[in-house]
């Protein structure tokens, strides 16, 4: 009687195998259908990315033509002496961007990424760009620094890179501006 009972119990276990088996029996068809659908989704993704690319290009040509375009980028080299929290950007004394960074964004910057911080339009001629950085400096102290650039806008698109660089000589961060 006991053996029969044990047998019955193990049969229950067998059912587990069978239930797994049932699913496996269906897998070939399921996997084939899945592959077909997945390829369809891959094609769609590719099409949507291409549409986004064309839209991006047209937007730039129409909304930010080269003769008025000014683009400001931000990059960071290591960031050991400065933990960036936020950047405020003023163009001709007007605040155009006030950006607060997430840890993920800081990580992307520290790994060599460059952020397109601002894209806008200005008239030809002389302009002033002011960037104010806030964060934590050496020894974890509150740190606030500015960088200014006087630039001339010509008929070419203007690209400006704000660079936060560690100066090992002074053990302080440096805030550089580069015109491309």
């Amino acid at each position, binding site marked *: 009687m006991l053996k029969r009972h044990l047998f019955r119990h193990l049969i*229950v276990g067998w059912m*587990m195998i069978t239930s797994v088996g*049932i699913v496996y029996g269906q897998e070939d068809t399921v996997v084939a259908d899945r592959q077909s659908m997945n390829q369809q989704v891959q094609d769609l993704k590719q099409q949507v990315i291409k*549409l986004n690319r064309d839209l991006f290009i047209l*937007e730039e040509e*129409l909304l930010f033509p080269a003769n008025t375009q000014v683009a400001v980028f931000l990059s960071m080299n290591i960031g050991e002496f400065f933990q960036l929290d936020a950047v405020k950007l003023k163009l001709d004394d007007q605040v155009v961007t006030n950006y607060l960074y997430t840890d993920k964004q800081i990580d992307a910057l520290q790994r060599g990424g460059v*952020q397109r911080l601002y894209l806008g339009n200005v008239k030809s001629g002389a302009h002033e760009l002011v960037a104010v950085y806030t964060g934590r400096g050496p020894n974890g102290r509150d740190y606030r620094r500015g960088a200014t650039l006087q630039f001339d806008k010509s*008929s070419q698109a203007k690209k400006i890179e704000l660079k936060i660089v560690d100066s090992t000589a002074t053990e302080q961060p440096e805030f550089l501006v580069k015109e491309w």
Partner: protein
Amino acid sequence: MIKDLLPSIILSLLLAIFSVSLCADDFPDDAPEEVQDLRYGVVLYHFFQQSYFDALTEVMVGETRSDMPFHQQSAELLRGGMSLSYGMSDQAEVIFSELLTTLDHQVDRDRAWFYLGKLYYLRGERDKAKAVFARIVAELSPALQEEKLFLTANIQLADGDLTGADETVSRLPKTSPWLAYYYFNLGSRKTLSGHWREGVSSFQKIDELTLTSEEGAALRDKAYTASGFAYLGGAEYEQAIDDFLKVRLESPLVEKALLGYGWAAAQQSDFERALAPWQTLSQRSLMSASVQESLLAIPYAYEKLGAQAGALLEYQRAVAAFDKELKNLAEAIDVFRDLPLVDVIAEDIGLGADWIMGHDYLPINQQAPYLSHLISQDYFQSAVKDLSDLTKMRQYLAESAIRIGAMETVLETQNRLWTENLSQSQREQYRQKYDELTAIRNEMQALKTADKENTTKQVFLSPEEVELWDIVADAEGVVEQLLSANYDVSEEIDQLHLYRGLLMWQAAEQDSERRWEFDKELVEIDESLARTRQHLQQLEGFSEHRYDEQFAGEIVGLKSRLLTQQQAVDTAVDELETEIRELAIVELENQQQRLSYYLAQAKLAIARLYDLGSEGAGQ
């Protein structure tokens, strides 16, 4: 019999492990190099945040604009890698295959070979993967090299070449995170092929590794569970119990471990000891198959201990629980029939964008634990990720519609402004003014040049003074004629000399002030000219970007593509929802079938115990 059960348990653990085994970060944390093309930097910025859609768009814009000359090949390589991570393996294959014919550096070619090999591996095309990995000549970066060795060893394991796999893995550093996954895969393979003792030995190697992360702890739980079942199959019950007891209480595998613990005790006829884990297990959610099984195991143990009345009560409790659970399953099936999967997936923040390094997705609803087996299947994960990506595509397309609308508005506004304010005649007026100013400026410049060649200081005279100088010149002419005719004009000559001297003195006296005035006027004319030129340039620039047929045509084209894609995405979302829903319902129906069987067994046991009771009373 337990030996027969073993393959299914190991297999279910294996299914989980292979999906986990692809979670390591592919990309080394080397010190970043300064980018030489800003756009490539922007690509990296999106890429490092796993924003593959934005990063892929940026790469493709860069290719169209040809503005990544310094990083062209790296960008293309990255595009291939991102396509793979974004679940576009077909696209990735095309990119890597093309790259291999164009890449200049061996290091880049080797990276392309690696990604292509990984792509084939993920698709289960082992021979192709092996052939591609064999083409890697130079040493890859440490992270990629370790992953390549791990994938190669896995292929060798699958091909039955255990010696080769061991040799490959021996080249991994002792601290490599892949070692633990390899040992688990090896242990599973050996146990499934009947060499359970060797399998256990492999599982135990994981215990010797330093695994500090949660992922490492979870892997260790899997290894203990698998090792416990291997011992159970080999009738080494105390060893099995030792391993089951090492599984953490918070582990998802603890229910399997508790069940196994009970079995190991029961196999030694120590039913009192078996009852402890089974009773603990029976307090947990009935959605788990292990918990369901414990409800039958407990009365079985009572019977073994001669406690028939207790066994009867437990069987009755099991019947009530199974009845209730069958109703719950029926409700769960109804829920899944109507569940708006798109909304559920859209709300989920746990499903990352990465197809390779992401974590398994668990649909958020209270019936999710019923689907634990299904969720561990690659095809289910792939379907859910497809649906999640399509949901995001739908969102991108909705945003694109807004952006296209904004561009239309801008074009219309520009057109209106052009028509209203910037007519042809206005431009002509500006041009005329510019021409006039240019003429004045040229005249003044000529004066200045003449001044340099002339020292008489008569260049900057006023018109009145010029008139007086003319009178003097005329008078001098008359005096000359009178002299020729022998008239005495000495007095007139003296007067004329005096007058000329007076005029020269006046000119010299005012010369500095006049020069200063002249220079000032020239500067003002130059400024005025610059302003007019700028206005004209702006007008002409605006003219170039005013509403024109080319922009309008491009926008119409984009709108048409947008509409087609929106429809295609909507259709695909519907199909995917149906696919996932059906998979979930089939899974739930399988569980209904199993639970009905358990219920029948419990009822039969109750009948049997009543029979026994009646027989006993009769005797």
